[in-house]
């Protein structure tokens, strides 16, 4: 019983652990050149050195700041526009087909244009992140509002709800599961966009740190940078899940056994 429990908890870690051991031993026996991939221990040491010098924290701060600012910008605009097209027919007619058309352009294809418009400074990075984040939030907000149960709206209206109260009590909560799906997608895209933006040109941030390390053949620092992106991406996803759990407690899919 207890053994089975431990096995179940430990088993998912077995494969990563084995890869790590294989990696370390390959590096030690010289089968794996440190220019291709440094040994895991070296990566840990590099990370530690970066933490001690304060570079790591400073760069993470800059990158996270960019990501969140871009997310706030693109997500905010996407949410507001999604609300507008979802709630008001004239806005839908005027805007939706245009937005759907632009959506088909891969955001990364806009990079040359963005560099021409905004240079290689902070603005271009923010706009790129915002652009990537905008569409999932917009599409899911619009779709969420569109798919709110018409019967519930009719019921609420017949019970005297209208205007803001109708929006707050019925339409927004009904659209929320879909909006949060968009937010989760957007969190993922946020980091992709940021990595690309920082790799192209940056004077600070994780991307700058890794590109700089590449010039000096510091493979260990490059790996640290890659792992940092993975970690931050995971954190963003966990944050999105936490928001879902907190706001969708009413949803049968999120109800735990403790409540029954």
């Amino acid at each position: 019983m207890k053994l089975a429990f431990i096995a179940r908890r430990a088993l998912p870690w077995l494969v990563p652990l084995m890869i790590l051991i294989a990696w370390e031993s390959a590096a030690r026996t010289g089968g794996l050149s440190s220019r291709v991939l440094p040994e895991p221990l070296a990566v840990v040491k590099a990370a530690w050195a970066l933490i001690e010098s304060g570079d790591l924290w400073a760069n993470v701060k800059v990158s996270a700041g960019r990501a969140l600012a871009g997310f706030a910008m693109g997500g905010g605009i996407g949410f507001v526009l999604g609300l507008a097209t979802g709630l008001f027919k004239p806005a839908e007619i005027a805007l939706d087909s245009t937005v759907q058309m632009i959506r088909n352009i891969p955001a990364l294809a806009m990079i040359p244009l963005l560099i021409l418009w905004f240079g290689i400074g902070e603005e271009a990075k923010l706009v790129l992140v915002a652009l990537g984040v905008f569409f999932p939030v917009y599409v899911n907000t619009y779709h969420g509002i569109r798919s709110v149960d018409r019967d519930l709206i009719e019921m609420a209206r017949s019970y005297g709800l209208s205007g803001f109260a109708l929006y707050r009590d019925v339409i927004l909560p009904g659209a929320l599961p879909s909006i949060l799906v968009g937010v989760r997608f957007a969190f993922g895209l946020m980091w992709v966009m940021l990595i690309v933006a920082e790799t192209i040109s940056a004077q600070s941030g994780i991307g700058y740190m890794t590109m700089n390390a590449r010039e000096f053949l510091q493979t260990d620092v490059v790996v640290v940078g890659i792992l940092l992106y993975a970690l931050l991406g995971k954190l963003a996803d966990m944050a999105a899940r936490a928001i879902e759990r907190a706001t969708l407690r009413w949803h049968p899919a999120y109800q735990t056994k403790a409540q029954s």
Partner: protein
Amino acid sequence: MNLIDIDTLTPAFRRVETHARAPLGGRDIAVSLRGVEKRFGERTVLDRLDLSIERGSFVSIVGRSGCGKSTLLRLIAGLDQPTGGILQRNAAARSDELQVRIMFQDARLLPWKGVLDNVMIGLPRDKRDEARATLAEVGLAEREKDWPSRLSGGQRQRVALARALVHRPDLLLLDEPLGALDALTRIEMQGLIERLWREHRLTALLVTHDVQEAVSLGDRIVLIDAGRITLDTDVPLPRPRTRTAPGFAELEEQVLSRVLQRGST
């Protein structure tokens, strides 16, 4: 969209209505329809319908599916507007507008609100205790914090009933509210509706395709077929009614045969 629209659309009749508000020939009419017509494009769903509903009475409307009975209820509720004719809602003497609440076939509870908050929809915050009391009336006081997804179908309809009653409506419209329930829950709910109708002195209008339900609850049975009233009969049975009471089965049989008539011709 809402109840006020109809009144503002027919200001002339509002004036007439104030005179008519006093019992006319001993009859106090809560809702009256004269030549009411509802068309969806080419299709006529209700065809010049005349119907008066006496205040305090329980009227059952029966008919096959698609006969227009639910449409009629939606017109009276003000959810849809008639394409022709006059629909009048006469307020009780104490107020200036007839308070109408509707109960649908599905409970239509907001899944993201707890049971008590669902009852509170459209109610000012300080009426919380009244909402609790009404929830107790339908026997769900101890479930006030639960999510609707935790309730059974019958319990959900009881919450919907409490939600309608807490507004102290004059007229309660029931659009096949028991249609989706199992037979036992149904009988239970019929008893509950009858009791609350009596205690709250409501005017009730029940749309159903179940003739037995219509006979056991209604003071009067109105049969609608193809948008017209084809039968309008009083139910002279004493309450509370049981299915074995003398006259019950005969009346049920009589109404049922009329409902089925169209199918045989």
